[in-house]
């Protein structure tokens, strides 16, 4: 799960990780009040809160040198469509801002903690190239990234934190504060079941403070059951409405931009089915895993979600019935298709237990369902359906 920057900073504060003073606001008036009464000073930063990076380049981060500017920037930002390299061309509507005190920056660094799957350990990554896209640094100048693997039994040790702070070129009070920062950050990452804690940039001030100017935290969905407070940070405004709807039915759905909808049991087979659609000349409109129990209800809900996407011109159902019996799934498909009255062509491929019976049922249903036997056959039939579509529209 992703959360907003201001929420991540709230969590970090709880673990004594240094962050600038700031507060989330929803109106320009509130922004001015927070700047004047709660933060004080003469420089403030207005930051758009969306679940995507690259906000600065898109105009989502501004430094205000007067309360008037705080008001103007906030007014312009709230409700604006912010497009960054991570949002895609459709962008995101800004609904919340973070107003922060201005910081007297000396150096900008990078710190990230995440799981390294190759060694099954968390790693702390650090770089002097703060404020840049770390993927680019990793690609162009990998020597500028320092990595330290964290032993799961011991956690991040002070000597590791000291080593990293020295490697970042820090000394004196800056070094001491950086070590405290790293140890606190790891504690926050570890105790919240985070899957990513990224501080980019980590800033060192002229006064020697070390603090998180930006903060990004992602969390392991599988562990949210033991972090009710973090689960409450979910902002469904940042998610696709269809995906939110699908999650209510326990369907695993990801919306894509194509024209062929698909409904599959199992994540791997669902990805493979998307690939088949592409090879057949179509573009997948979604990823949809209906999970282990493909019954009448899940199939009907799946249809509803797929059909709410106006780009869908055809549907491919691909169910491998292992424990699930195909004739039961066929029953579900037929009754759902009748109920919803679908006019789009539907290719149905049911394989596994009782597949032959299932195919006969589909054929005799009176519905214009197109049964397919193998994966290759399904691909072939999707190609034909798409070709027919084109002739009709031409």
């Amino acid at each position, binding site marked *: 799960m992703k959360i907003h920057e201001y929420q991540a900073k709230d969590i970090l504060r709880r673990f004594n990780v240094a962050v600038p003073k700031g507060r989330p606001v929803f109106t320009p008036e509130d922004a001015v009040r927070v700047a004047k009464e709660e933060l004080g000073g003469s420089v403030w930063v207005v930051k758009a809160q969306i679940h995507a990076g690259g906000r600065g380049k898109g105009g989502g981060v501004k430094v205000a040198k007067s309360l008037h500017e705080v008001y103007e920037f906030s007014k312009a930002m709230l409700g604006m469509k912010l497009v960054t390299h*991570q949002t895609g061309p459709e962008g995101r509507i800004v609904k919340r801002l973070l107003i922060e005190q201005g910081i007297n920056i000396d150096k900008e660094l990078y710190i990230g903690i995440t*799981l390294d*799957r*190759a060694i*099954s*350990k*968390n790693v702390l990554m650090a770089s002097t190239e703060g404020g840049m896209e*770390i*993927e680019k640094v*990793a*690609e162009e100048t990998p020597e500028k990234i320092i990595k330290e693997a964290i032993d*799961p*039994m011991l956690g991040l040790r002070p000597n590791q934190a000291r080593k990293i702070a020295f490697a970042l070129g820090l000394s004196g009070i800056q070094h001491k504060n950086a070590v405290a920062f790293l140890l606190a950050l790891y504690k926050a990452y*570890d105790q919240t*079941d985070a*899957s990513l804690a990224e501080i980019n940039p980590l800033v060192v001030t002229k006064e020697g403070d070390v603090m998180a100017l930006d903060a990004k935290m992602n969390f*392991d*969905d*599988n*562990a949210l*059951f*033991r972090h009710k407070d973090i689960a409450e940070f979910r902002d469904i405004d940042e998610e696709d409405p269809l995906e939110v709807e699908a999650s209510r039915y326990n369907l*695993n759905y*990801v919306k*894509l931009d194509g024209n062929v909808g698909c409904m*599959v*049991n*199992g*994540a*791997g*087979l*669902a*990805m*493979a089915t*998307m*690939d*088949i*659609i*592409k*090879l057949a000349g179509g*573009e*997948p409109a979604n*990823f949809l*895993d209906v999970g282990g129990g493909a019954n009448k209800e899940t199939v009907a809900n799946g249809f509803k979600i797929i059909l709410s996407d106006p780009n869908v011109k055809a549907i491919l159902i691909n169910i*491998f*019935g*292992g*424990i699930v019996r195909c004739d039961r799934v066929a029953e579900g498909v037929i009754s759902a298709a009748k109920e919803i009255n679908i006019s789009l062509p539907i290719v149905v491929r049911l*394989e*596994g*237990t009782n597949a032959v019976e299932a195919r006969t049922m589909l054929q005799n249903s009176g519905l214009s369902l197109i049964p397919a036997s*193998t*994966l*290759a056959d399904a*691909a072939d039939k999707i190609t034909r359906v798409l070709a027919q579509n084109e002739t009709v529209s031409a």
Partner: protein
Amino acid sequence: MSILVDKKTRLVVQGITGSEGSFHTKQMVEYKTKVVAGVTPGKGGTDYEGIPIFNTVKDAVDATKANTSVIFVPASFAADAILEAADAGIKVIICITEGIPAADMIPVYHYLKTKNAILIGPNCPGVISPGKAKIGIMPGFIHKEGRVGVISRSGTLTYEAVKQLTDLGIGQSTCVGIGGDPVIGSRFIDIIKLFNEDPDTDGIVMIGEIGGSAEEEAAEYIKKNVKKPVVGFIAGQTAPPGRRMGHAGAIISGGKGTAAEKMAALKKAGIKVVKSPADLGITMKKALDAYYKKV
């Protein structure tokens, strides 16, 4: 022969009285897997369909000489169940449970290395050596005894590949679902090593997916060590970056872990990479025919 499980497998089912555990125990027994014990804390002394239930894995091992465990316990207790099996001396532990927090699995992974135990999963369909033993939730009837090893990160996509092989008359030595999570007990490379050393496995089908770099790691090993034909597929060629495709591990992050990258690495290692999952069976058939002519 086969790898990991066979006729000598004596299975203990952890979580045997739960709905998943009891259902699949029946299925495994029907396949003639030797299920010798079940474990449900507090239900020791009772039985399920004639299979004795114990309070701890240790009790089960002492009483029944169980040597393999399959785990169906809920996600919040599953990591501990794996540790319990390892402490009781079980050497092959297969964890079906889905949704275990990654932070729970990291120490388990490293602890098991010190115990010399092999963990398959979590979040996996299990392991089957057709005609010998079925440990997990896969449908037994699509399999056929034979000489091709199958390894995959997914469930139903593995069944798809197996069905294609069986339909072409190609049997399997062992099929292993290693699971779709970021932290898993055994990776591609671990299982491919076993297949390579197994004299009764002549070819390997590996089915990867986007995310991580385990396929690339295995490709390096294959290039150096494997003479048997290997056919590969990577699911998620059309998946967009940054979006998790069902499996917690199936995500392209920071531009890494794309299907294109993995397919290129596999090809470079001499693996026959198919673009379409529909071609897995037929490609293996051709590769095997050529291999048998050479040998």
